[in-house]
């Protein structure tokens, strides 16, 4: 299918992009990798009057560690992050999850920030950002603000980002010594959106599990470790978490199946995270 008509701007600077976005109002959209937005344009689920292309802005190509964070700019592709040699040491959860994001061919163009801005409840990147306590840096023509990932997502395809803001970068905290991380998901085909995705983090004091694909946004829960191990009543705790997440039947799976995946994959990733602590 083909997109409806729109004007197209490839600005020379971020300031120009933000000025055009502010002037365009709700009818303007930004595009970077386009791997979420282009399908929606092709199916005419969105019909902006102005498309602002961020993909060639050098200012948004920053991929660096600084003061305990890995910062990923809006024009950095998923493939570029995955190819970072130190990624498995810096943000091991992201290194584990990124191969599950789409396919080789879409990761070559898709961006981390675009996936976060798109806010699909079953997408891996928002889940990792919430699981690791990351941040989203938003910018409009006048100011810049930083939002904790846990506060950024409001629901399916819905975030606190205003129409005149872009996701300038996302920031993942660097993994702390002694922490362990694991990621697994169930999908119809590797690379498809997850039916249920689980990301676990274990440090010296607590075990955390973030779940995507069940509730309307990635959701995190933590439990204190008991004698250095997972809580003895973990099965009950996971069961309660699964019920609290809600979830509905849809064409891919029943809510009951999703709860079962939370119990089973949740336990698996927590055990993996505990056993791979460094």
């Amino acid at each position: 299918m083909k997109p409806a008509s729109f004007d197209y701007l490839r600005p020379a600077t971020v300031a120009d992009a933000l000025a055009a976005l502010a002037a365009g109002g709700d009818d303007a959209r930004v595009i970077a990798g386009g791997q979420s937005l282009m399908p929606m344009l092709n199916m005419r689920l969105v019909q902006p009057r102005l498309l602002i292309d961020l993909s060639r802005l050098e200012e948004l190509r920053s991929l660096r560690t600084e003061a305990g964070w890995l910062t990923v700019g809006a024009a950095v592709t998923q493939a570029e992050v995955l190819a970072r040699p130190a990624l498995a040491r810096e943000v091991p959860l992201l290194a584990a999850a990124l191969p599950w994001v789409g396919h080789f061919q879409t990761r070559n163009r898709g961006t981390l920030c675009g996936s976060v801005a798109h806010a699909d409840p079953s997408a891996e990147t928002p889940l990792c950002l919430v699981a690791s306590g990351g941040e989203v840096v938003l910018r409009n023509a006048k100011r810049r603000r930083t939002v904790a990932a846990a506060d950024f997502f409001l629901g399916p395809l819905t975030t606190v980002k205003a129409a005149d803001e872009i996701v300038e970068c996302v920031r993942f905290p660097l993994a702390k010594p002694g922490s362990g991380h694991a990621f697994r998901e169930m999908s119809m085909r590797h690379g498809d959106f997850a039916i249920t995705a689980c990301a676990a983090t274990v440090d010296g004091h607590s075990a955390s599990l973030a779940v995507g694909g069940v509730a309307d946004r990635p959701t995190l829960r933590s439990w204190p470790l008991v004698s250095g191990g997972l809580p003895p009543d973990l099965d009950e705790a996971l069961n309660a978490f699964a019920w609290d997440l809600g979830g509905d039947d849809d064409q891919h799976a029943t809510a009951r199946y999703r709860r079962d995946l939370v119990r089973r994959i949740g336990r698996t990733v927590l055990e993996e995270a505990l056993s791979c602590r460094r």
Partner: protein
Amino acid sequence: MPPLTSQASPPVLAAETRHAVSIVLNGTPRSGHAHPRLLLSDFLRHELGAHGTRVGCEHGVCGACTVRIDGVAVRACLTLAVQADGRRIDTVEGLAAANGGRMTALQEAFRRHHALQCGFCTAGILMSLTDYLGRTPKPTEEELRDMLSGHLCRCTGYAGIVRAVMEVTGQTMKEGGHV
């Protein structure tokens, strides 16, 4: 507040106007015109007459339209023609052209192992593999299958594709191994 720009932004490309788009297609500079909404896949086929690139689902799932932009395998149906302006685009037509007019070793292996059935998905798969094997010269079967998961072959002709790639990368399949 006037924007503080060091260089002037290009003008907005109006929706109803066809704009000049220049690319280097398989090593040859080519140009045509495109409305902003025109997909790169349609630009290649209808504006430049390069019909080797196939159009399947048009929402990024099937992989039939995969081309290389600046060497990197991407979906042509999820890229606008105007976004490709100034870029190097390689399509299936360019494989043999860059090999002295003869099929590449990968294409020959596809032929030997009949790594296709109807052939509709083949162009995209060849373009993905051209990028992928450049980065991963000896993929394991598992890695190869993971990469191929970005392509749908509705004839389910994957077994021959895996055999062809394992051969062309100098690897032998396990005897009686599952393909």
